[in-house]
């Protein structure tokens, strides 16, 4: 057991032990600690196997910055063991191992490492046959790839989403962030402070630099990771399973630094930890990292680690100093450890570090604490537009951010010392207040604009990065890339940083370069004789930390739209199907579908049917220029349309393509009621607004699609049924002729009634306020003989009349001439949208036509999209097709070459099964070509 007594372990609750399983063995930890720390308390440092060579790996930084700590937790892959807290009953196991973590058979790959240079897979796996990659090599490589495992049977809770607004968002509650947030709050700003840790403090939590009391006067979010900065200070903060979208007036990024690894042979052995990780284990989790330590103190942080180890009574066998640390001599002396000048040249051990070599000398140890310096956490700043520079003298990255509204503070801004970080935080807080127009919290004199930072000089050790001739000196732990790999990539000609990245995959693993980007930039700069700043790092992209798809998706509800008659349809046993967001009845009742549809068609043709058309677009166009407006938008003449008349309306776009159709009822000189197809109304409504923004006509459009419902009553008995209902509309043939409209009351419901075509029978469409539709429906149904019918029957009825369906029989370019609808295009109007293109396209020649096709009874295998063939070559296709129950044979609308469009022409079609059949071009309508039934007067 490697547990330390209190007061070590500030985050663990010793009163609440937690038992979980790792690799099948029971492990006991405490509430409040992470999986990695609980395992470390058992002496288990190895957590994973590396991606390529399957080398034993453990945490280096213990700060969620590496793939070494990724474990499988139940059905959840790639869990960061150094961030995930233990919970009772968790099943934790290693990923991507053949066998077990301890005995991974795939580690044998390591024996062949020297045959697998950088980019080796581009040079081989191509043969012997062309299929070799797909059939043999790729499946094997795929099987080796990937870390954790997804479980298709797994159920995860849906994520939640929320919004936050604030004057100032401070990301990072370390010394700088706390100072900035508190100052701004005192200045009257509405501040939100977020931090990934379970409590504010940042590095102060695990160093004895001074505790902070809880900040006051502001909102604090803990366990909250800011993953992205987006335009206009819109940021994503992930807290547990919740995605917060934050809109901040000002943003301060006090996101700190990322401890960098030392690069030497076998630097990836478990037990090699950053100085911060050592302190976190000891102070936060009360865990002894090991029993005998060596400290590489390239920076004074190494001495912090040595002091923590000493406080935990862990002997420090040696402090290795690559360079003197002026000003810290007393501390070094006080540590009573052997001080060795030099650097770590190699580590050795099986599954855990057992000894390290400085020069010729091996020193045994089971922990190596590494302090070589930090890289500023550049991810969020660079997302916000910061540019990464390099201070060659100091050997470290710098960040410069010029975007108004976003500020850097603290370590990320280049301040290494604690006091300097706090001072910089105050500066940033004051700058944010100024930008918000709030009075300064403190006297300007009390704010250091460029804090002095005596610690800066020693903050980074420019470690040598020459490749070890025997290799295994890892620059990128995630991708198992050694120094030589990067050097060789450059030698192959991949000299640009992005090309090095893509060819070698450096920085492409889960840690996205946190531990490798700095060393990579230096190595590539050296190899290409350029400055580090010129080489740079790969573009920083959101998310700054991985985000679960469930968190991003939230509930992901799909909107459903139902008509006011939905319950009526369900009660009648309708087969409801989605049409876009709407649910519509396809047919009613159970049993043989074709038979029921045929019955519905027959009921309409022989009696009376009822169709819910509430999803239709409904637009009210009103104003003195309403008629002129419709004249310009549609192809027919509406300006001269008499009040009380209904006219078909056809809408084109500027290319002369048909985009919508419907009917327009003129209610008054300055008022039209216009219908539009279900699918196009939203677009039509927007287009109307756009056109009128340019024309400036005195007109207003209201979209009543959802407000009104629509019932279509159609069939030879339709008039009789409606006339029998109480109301003030005279439905008689003389009073209510074809293509007219009446407003009044039917069965107590105010309606706009229109007499139209489409089905080929006597047909009325009643539109009423949606809430009253059920009452109207019930009144109509009470007649007893009315048969509700659905979309399937409706399509057949329309097809029997040769009517087009927008979006099915039309496409993105189909013109009225091609569709056989030249009759709907006014030749007199000086202008309408699409007129110019229609005329131009007419002059260019109409190459194809949409024609009705009639097939012999019994023709089989016809379906929508079946090809029309001319000389064996595809020359068109069927757009709509059905077996007409009325006529007893299949009918269709089809695109054919213009030369085959004459009625009577025989057309060849390839059926679904490949058989070739023929049909004949019919006249406009298959049924009642003279329209006598729908226009009947009596």
């Amino acid at each position: 057991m490697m547990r330390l007594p209190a007061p070590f372990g500030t985050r663990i609750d010793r009163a609440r032990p937690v038992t979980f399983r790792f690799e099948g063995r029971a492990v006991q930890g405490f509430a409040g600690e992470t999986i990695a720390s609980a395992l470390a308390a058992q002496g288990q440092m190895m957590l994973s196997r590396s991606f390529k060579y399957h080398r034993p790996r453990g945490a280096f930084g213990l700060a969620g910055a590496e793939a070494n700590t990724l474990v499988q937790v139940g059905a959840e892959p790639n869990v960061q063991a150094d961030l995930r807290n233990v919970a009772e009953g968790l099943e934790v196991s290693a990923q991507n191992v053949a066998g077990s973590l301890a005995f991974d058979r795939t580690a044998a790959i390591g024996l062949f490492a020297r045959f697998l240079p950088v980019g080796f897979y581009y040079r081989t796996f191509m043969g012997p046959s062309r299929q070799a990659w797909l059939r043999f090599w790729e499946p094997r490589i795929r099987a080796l790839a990937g870390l954790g495992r997804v479980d298709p049977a797994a159920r995860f809770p849906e994520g939640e989403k929320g919004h936050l607004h604030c004057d100032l968002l401070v990301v990072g509650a370390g010394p700088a962030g706390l100072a900035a947030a508190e100052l701004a709050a005192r200045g009257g700003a509405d501040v939100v402070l977020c931090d990934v840790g379970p409590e504010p403090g940042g590095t102060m939590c695990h160093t004895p630099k001074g505790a902070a009391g809880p900040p006051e006067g502001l909102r604090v979010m803990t366990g909250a990771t800011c993953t992205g900065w987006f335009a206009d200070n819109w940021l994503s903060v992930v807290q547990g399973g919740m995605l917060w979208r934050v809109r901040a007036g000002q943003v301060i990024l006090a996101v700190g630094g990322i401890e960098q690894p030392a690069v030497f042979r076998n630097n990836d052995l478990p037990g090699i930890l950053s100085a911060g990780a050592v302190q976190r284990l000891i102070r936060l989790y009360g865990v002894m990292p090991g029993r005998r330590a060596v400290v590489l103190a390239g920076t004074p942080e190494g001495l912090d680690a040595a002091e923590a180890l000493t406080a935990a009574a862990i002997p420090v066998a040696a402090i290795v100093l690559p360079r003197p640390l002026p000003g810290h001599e007393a501390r070094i002396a006080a540590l009573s450890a052997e001080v060795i000048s030099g650097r770590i040249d190699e580590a050795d051990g099986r599954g855990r570090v057992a000894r390290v070599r400085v020069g010729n000398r091996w020193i045994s140890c089971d922990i190596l604490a590494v302090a070589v310096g930090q890289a500023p956490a550049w991810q969020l700043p660079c997302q916000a537009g910061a540019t990464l520079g390099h201070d060659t003298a100091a050997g470290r990255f710098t960040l410069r951010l010029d975007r108004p509204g976003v500020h850097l503070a603290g370590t990320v801004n280049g301040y290494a010392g604690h006091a300097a970080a706090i001072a910089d935080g105050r500066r940033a807080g004051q700058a944010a207040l100024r930008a918000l127009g709030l009075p300064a919290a403190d006297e300007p004199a009390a704010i250091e604009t460029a804090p002095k930072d005596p610690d800066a000089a020693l903050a980074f050790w420019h470690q040598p990065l020459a490749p070890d001739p025997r290799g295994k000196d890892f620059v990128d732990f995630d991708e198992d890339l050694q120094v030589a790999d990067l050097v060789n990539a450059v030698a192959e000609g991949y000299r640009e940083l992005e090309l090095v990245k893509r060819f070698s995959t450096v920085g492409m693993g889960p840690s996205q370069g946190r531990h490798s980007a700095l060393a990579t930039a230096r190595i590539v700069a050296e190899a290409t004789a350029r400055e580090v700043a010129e080489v740079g790092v790969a573009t920083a992209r959101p998310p700054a930390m991985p985000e679960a798809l469930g968190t991003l998706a939230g509930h992901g509800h799909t909107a459903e739209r139902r008509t006011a008659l939905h319950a009526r349809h369900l009660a009648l046993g309708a087969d409801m199907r989605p049409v876009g967001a709407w649910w519509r009845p396809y047919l009613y009742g159970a049993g043989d579908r074709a038979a029921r549809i045929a019955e519905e068609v027959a009921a309409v043709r022989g009696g009376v049917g009822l169709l819910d058309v509430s999803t239709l677009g409904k637009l009210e166009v009103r104003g003195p220029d309403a008629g002129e407006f419709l004249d310009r938008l549609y192809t027919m003449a509406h300006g001269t349309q008499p009040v009380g008349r209904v006219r078909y309306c056809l809408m084109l776009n500027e290319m002369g393509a048909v985009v919508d159709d419907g009917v327009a009822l003129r209610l008054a000189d300055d008022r039209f009621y216009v219908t539009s197809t279900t699918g196009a109304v939203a677009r039509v409504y927007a287009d109307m607004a756009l056109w009128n923004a340019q024309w400036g006509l005195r007109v207003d459009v209201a979209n009543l699609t959802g407000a009104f419902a629509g019932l279509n009553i159609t069939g030879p008995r339709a008039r009789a049924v409606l006339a029998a209902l109480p109301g003030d509309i005279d439905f008689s043939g003389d009073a209510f002729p074809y293509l007219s409209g009446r407003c009044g009351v039917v069965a107590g419901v105010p309606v706009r009634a229109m007499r139209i075509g489409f089905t080929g029978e006597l047909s009325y469409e009643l539109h009423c306020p949606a809430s009253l539709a059920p009452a109207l429906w019930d009144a109509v149904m009470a007649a007893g003989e009315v048969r509700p019918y659905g979309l399937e029957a409706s399509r057949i009825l329309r097809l029997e009349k040769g009517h087009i369906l927008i979006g099915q029989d039309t496409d993105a370019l189909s013109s009225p001439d091609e569709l056989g609808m030249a009759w709907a295009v006014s030749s007199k109007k000086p202008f309408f949208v699409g007129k110019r293109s229609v005329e131009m396209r007419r002059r260019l020649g109409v190459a194809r036509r949409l024609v009705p096709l009639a097939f012999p009874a019994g023709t089989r295998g016809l379906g929508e999209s079946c090809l029309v063939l001319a000389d064996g070559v595809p020359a068109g296709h069927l757009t709509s097709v059905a077996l007409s129950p009325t006529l007893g044979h299949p009918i269709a609308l089809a695109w054919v070459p213009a030369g085959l469009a004459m009625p009577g022409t025989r057309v060849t079609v390839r059926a679904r099964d490949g058989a070739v059949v023929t049909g004949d071009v019919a006249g406009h309508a298959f049924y009642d070509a003279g329209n006598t039934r729908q226009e009947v007067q009596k």
Partner: protein
Amino acid sequence: MVFRLLKYGLSRQYPVTGDLPPTPELRAHYDVVIVGGGGHGLACAHHLAKYHGIRSVAVLEKGWLAGGNTARNTTTIRSNYMTMQSIAFYREAVALYGSMSEELDFNVMFSQRGQLTLAHSEATLRAFHLRAETGRHMGIGIEVIGPDEVRARVPELHMDQGGGLEILGGLWHPDGGTARHDAVAWGYAREASRRGVEIHQRTAVTGFAVQGGRVTAVNTDRGTIGAGAVLIACGGMNYDMALRAGVELPIRCFPLQAMVTEPVKPWLHTLVSSVSLHTYLVQSSRGEVVIGGGSDPYQLYSTRSTLDLKEHLAEGAVHLFPFLRGLKVLRQWAGITDMTPDYSPIMGASPLENLWLDCGWGTWGFKATPVAGKRMAECIATGKVPDILAPFALSRFERFDLVNEMGATAASH
């Protein structure tokens, strides 16, 4: 083949193959100047050098090699288009991908695992049937399959039976697949430069000298060069570049975003795409799941990422595969797509006698890399546009002779 790797283990010094030569000095004149060092330009250079004996070629890339859309696409390769002209074209691309690793002696990892496009509506099924009928006529592998076969092919799919997005069927295209986009560029670059083609990275074309209906010189930020012929093939910057030569292209640029997850063990063995959800997923050979969708809604020359689109993609992915809720997104990025009015490319001649166009690649460019390179090389070498490219001429717009790959709805832009 694996024996190639022996030399790496048996040599003391790393045996350099030398894929990409360093950028040389610019010469005064080249027979062919290719503006844009992406997949298309490099493929064209390769074909010019290998098959037409034209080696005095300079490929000018303003950034790092193939760092534009070639580096950013989601690697889909397919030929399941609507028009016969398009199918003929992309079918040739699929065939060329099939032999590309051999041709370039560079493993581009062409993984022909098929593409399954899902239909959640009858309208989509109808459109699928049209693609299947036309595609079968053109001899490509394509068929409409029912929900049972969809489920058999991808058992992990959420079929949403009875729901608003119920899967009614799918379009199965076994010819479809993916390839490693960077490797395609590097393979072409290496082969081309072996034959004397010069690749100039960090060389921006700033303009052209035009006289008498010809380009007489190409101005770059490293000097001015003479050119016998010029090809514009620079992806998102095609409109701007053509304008500098006085040629207006009917192209509008929109960002197209994508994202990738952390790597997991293989579970998705084909490319799955949903029209209604505007989402598609494919799992790479690294184990990462690449997720893409529709273009951004407004014109922009930027590769910035947005949170909104990432949320939409996540919703789509999680709807199709609910168990992916536990999988984490690692990175998002974007490319700049040069969109044409009919969603078909603009290839072939320009109003200038020696200026050739390989433009308008929108969201369909990577899959065409080898055929565009091959056929544009033919144009340049012979001075004539081959029949397979004729439908994609710039002049088709003024003749209103579009190659309509838009589908049932007019382009919303």
